[in-house]
Every structure is written in C-alpha cells, then in structure tokens.
C-alpha cells in the first residue's frame, strides 16, 4: 500500500462516508416498502413505519397471492418471459453468426442497415400499431415478441464475440465433414456460453419489465402482464376523494388507503422478486455489460 498524504487521507474518509450515504439512499425505498408490506394497517396509517415493520402481519401478501388476477398476471409474465427470451436469443444468435464471417458478401451492407435502423428508430407509435394490426397480432403475445426478436445491439455483441473464436477450431470441424449448422451448434455455441448466459439474463429482465408494449398491444384483462397489473394497482386511488371535502368519506378513504399501501407494497415486492432473485447471477456478468457498452456502432 502506498503511503498517503494528509489531504489524501481526508479525501478518502469524506469519500467513504459519502458513498455509505449513497448506498443507504439506494436501499432505503426497498427496505421501507418491505417494512410497510409486513405492517398492520393502523401502524401504516399513523405514518410510523420506517425501516422496521410494526405490528407484523402477512395479510397483505396473503391478499396478493390469493388474488386471482395477480396469480394470472404472474403466470402470464413467467410464460411470456421464458418464450420471449428464448426466441430473442435464438434468433439473434443465429442472425449474428453469419455476420461474423469476414468473407461473407453483403456483410457490410447488412451492418450498415442495422446501424441505420438503430439511428432512425422504428417510425413511432402509430405506424407500428398499424403494422401489428394488419398482421392480426393485436391481443397476442407475438406483438410483443416478434418485433424485438432480433435485438440489434445484441447482434453486434454476439458478432464480435463469435469473431474472437479461433478459426482453427471451426476449421477442424469442417475437416471432419461437419456442416455450417453442426459447427455452429456443436463448436461455436458451447464456446460462447458466457456471452449467451449474460445476454439471456439481461434479455429476461427486459422481458419481465415489458410495460408499454403490453399496455398497447395486449388489452384483454386475462392476458395482462404483471407490470400492467401493477400499474393498475398503483394508479387506483392516487387522487383521494378527500379532495371532495367530505369528512366521513375522508376517514373511510384513509382506512381503505392504509390497507391499500400495504397491498401495493406487497404487490411491488412480488413483482421485483424474480429480478432480485437473479440479480446475484447477473452481477457475474457486469463485465459482459461493459462489453455491450464498449462496442461502438
């Protein structure tokens, strides 16, 4: 360890304290909501629940889990996330592999088209909606899956990863008489496990978070995804009837809202839970995240 001057030591101490402060700010909302979700109505209503639950009860979790539309939305979202992630990764990988071949004619053209498409976006809300409608995909999950089946950013990441694989390995396969697909599946993909794992996790989290697209394209209540369901719960009652000035209804409303707060907190945490559960695995791949960002165009 190098020796530090007085001013450097002072800087370090201040910096460490400041960083601790940031960590607390990052964690506070989540810890607070955990406490709220476990507290009794009266404790929440009195505004005393901060970091530690008061009057511990599991009633709000019970309510959330027993709620049929929550269970349905959760099931839909799990299914959708699995299918969407699988399709997106499979299509993106397969598309990226030929592009990693330097002698492929038209490779430049395709890369230019991809970058162009990234720069210009996809034309806005209504042109996309009309397209989905004309393809009769409204109210199906295909409207959420197919448009993003090729993730251009990930194409670039996969492509640069495949390019790093020594050609001699593929060459060996070729001598054994293996076709392009066999080489891709038997040699290239097993060597690409880390990047596949990383992008699968990132893609799954993105799929789990799908909100806007689901809001527009999948209006049926029984097909609702979790994020849309959560938004409905959160928006309910945001403008209290207290605005109307009726004292009695004000009290009623307060009682209802306290209960609602614990319920909302429980619902929020249940929506976060899968992401929190895989976060430790995601963490392993922050380096891959670095790679994603550092590839330019």
């Amino acid at each position, binding site marked *: 360890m190098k020796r530090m001057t007085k001013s450097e030591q002072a800087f*370090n101490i201040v910096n460490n304290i400041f960083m601790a402060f940031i960590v607390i700010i990052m964690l506070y909302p989540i810890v607070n909501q955990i406490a709220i979700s476990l507290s009794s109505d009266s404790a929440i209503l009195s505004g005393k629940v901060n970091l530690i639950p008061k009057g511990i009860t599991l009633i709000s979790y019970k309510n959330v889990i027993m709620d049929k539309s929550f269970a349905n939305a959760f099931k839909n979202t799990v299914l959708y996330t699995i299918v969407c992630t699988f399709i997106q990764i499979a299509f993106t990988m397969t*598309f990226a592999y030929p592009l990693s071949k330097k002698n492929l004619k038209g490779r430049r053209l395709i890369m230019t088209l991809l970058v162009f498409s990234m720069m210009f976006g996809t034309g806005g809300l209504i*042109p996309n909606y*009309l397209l989905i409608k004309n393809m009769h995909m409204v109210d199906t999950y295909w409207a959420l899956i197919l448009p993003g089946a090729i993730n251009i950013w990930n194409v670039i990441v996969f492509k640069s990863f495949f390019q790093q694989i020594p050609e001699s390995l593929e060459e060996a396969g070729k001598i054994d008489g293996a076709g392009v697909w066999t080489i891709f599946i038997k040699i290239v993909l097993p060597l690409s496990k880390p990047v596949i794992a990383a992008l699968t996790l990132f893609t799954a989290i993105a799929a789990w978070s799908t*909100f806007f697209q689901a809001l527009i394209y999948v209006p049926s209540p029984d097909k609702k995804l979790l994020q849309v369901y959560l938004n409905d719960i959160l928006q309910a009652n945001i403008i209290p009837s207290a605005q109307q000035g009726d004292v009695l209804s004000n009290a009623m409303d307060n009682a209802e809202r306290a209960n609602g707060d614990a319920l909302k907190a429980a619902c*929020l945490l249940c*929506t976060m839970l899968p992401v929190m559960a895989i976060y430790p695995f995601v963490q392993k791949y922050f380096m891959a*995240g670095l790679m994603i960002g550092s590839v330019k165009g």
Partner: protein
Amino acid sequence: MKKTREEKLKTEKKKTSALYWKNMRPYYLMLLPGLILIIIFRFCPLYGMLVAFKDYDMFRGFSESPWVGLKWFRILFESRDFYNILRNTLVISFLDLIFTFFGSIVFAILINEIQGRRYKKLVQTVSYLPHFLSWVVVGGLVIQLLSSDSFLVRSVADMLNIAPKNILLEQQYFFPVIVVAEMWKSIGWGTILFLAAMSGISPELYEAARVDGAGKFKQIWYITLPGIKFIMVIQLLMRIGGIMNVGFEKVFVLQNSMILDVAEVFSTYNYKVGIGQWNMSFSSALSFFESLTNFILVFVFDRIAKLLGEEGLL
C-alpha cells in the same frame, strides 16, 4: 495463425463464385429469418410514417386515404399543447443530462477513488441494482414514498410544522421528483462505461503526479478526466441525440390528471392522441417531428464534435 487466415482469404477470392455460393449458402439461410423480421418490423413502419401526410381513415386503409400534405403539422404547430409539451420534454431532458449524466461522471470518479476493494464492490453492486427494476416498480416506489401517510413525508411535514400532503398531486414538485427518480434508477449503472475507461488509465500517471505534488483534485482534473474524455463525448452525443425522447414509461407511471400541465411529454401525449383518441395521422405527425429533430440533433452535434477534433458518432 494470422498468415494462414490471410492466405485463406486470398484463395477464397480466387475461387469461382459458383463455389462461393455453394459454400456460403447455409450462412445466407441463417440470415434469412432475421432479415425478414428486420425488414417487416423495423423498415416497414418507417414507410408507414407517411400516414403523417395523409388523412388516415381506418376503414379506407393506408393506400386509399387521401394525401393532405402538411395539414397535421400545421395543426400540431398551431396547438397550444405542443409548446407546453415541448417545454416539459426539454426541461426533463436537460435536468436528466445535468443531474444523471454529469452525476454519473462524478459518481464514477468517486467510486474509482474508493481504496477498499470490498467496499468498492459493495457500492457498485448496490447502486447498479435499481437499473434492473422496471419503471413501473420504480414509479411505484416513488408513489409509495411520497404518499401523504408515508414515514418520509410525515417526518418532513412534522419538521416544517405543516400538514403532510401528497407530493405527486402538486405541480411544482413534478420536475424534481422525476429527476430524482431517474437519478436513483440510472446514476449507478451510468458509471459503468466511465469506470471501464478509468481502469484503462495507467497507475504510473497518478504516481508521477503525486511525486510532483499534485493533490487529489489535481489528479482527477489532469489525469482521470482526460482519460475518460472520449467516452464522455460519445455518451454526450448519444444523450443529445435523444433529447426529444423522454421515455414513456417513467413519465406515464408518475403523472396524474392533476399535474398534466407539467407532466405531459411527447411520448405520453402521443400515446393519448394515438391510442386514446385514434387520431392516427396527427400522432404520426408528432412521431415524425420527433424523429426528424433527433436526427438533425445527432447530425449537428456529431459535426461539432468532429470540428473540435473528437472522433464522432457517425
């Protein structure tokens, strides 16, 4: 290794094109599904943008609807809403740029200065977490924390000796709230590229500076910042290019009918006009305006960066 590859490339070129196609056909078949998807879902909608110049009628369809030239753009620029939304969009974007983007740079510098390895890892792990939560969840946390019976609001109200109120229903708090929410969600993850760039700076530079008697601030100013200048410029360009896109989700989850004067931005307005009122041509005109401005901004700032001697984005 390298030489054999080059030789191979050369012989490849000499091969007849018939052989080339025979060898490469499987690769093109692999490209095909992706290309079809990209053409349908990324390029067809660009053509569909022409709806902005038509009087789109759902029953007559795209090709039968009459052309109306710039009618919808005229209506757009004459509406009062437009200037309100433009202002909100720009205010939120600029606040994000100042607080989240430059905040990330400062945060990255401070993380980089943490001496203990474990502590550094902890700070990073915790501050990256919110990035992985959806905007509905983050919006939900904000709604809950700012509701009138939350501990936070009660404590502050008690301290100031006023009655607790629901902050999300008050116009004057909307911009600060949305900026803080964005900071909470993105400031940690935003450091990742800067930290990567900083890890590439040679420790010898710092040693040399210390020998010359440079303090922490001078080291940061003369070594760290120049070391991440390139990535800073690229990121700044990308940010400025997206200045008209304030994300739909974050505004949508935090807005309510009481504060629409400050809480309506292009994306949310577009949603209401397009999907709410099915005014498709008007909504497309709005999208068209947004895309065009973005494109011009990226182009102009790319030129400026190149004039200043930086490598641009395009």
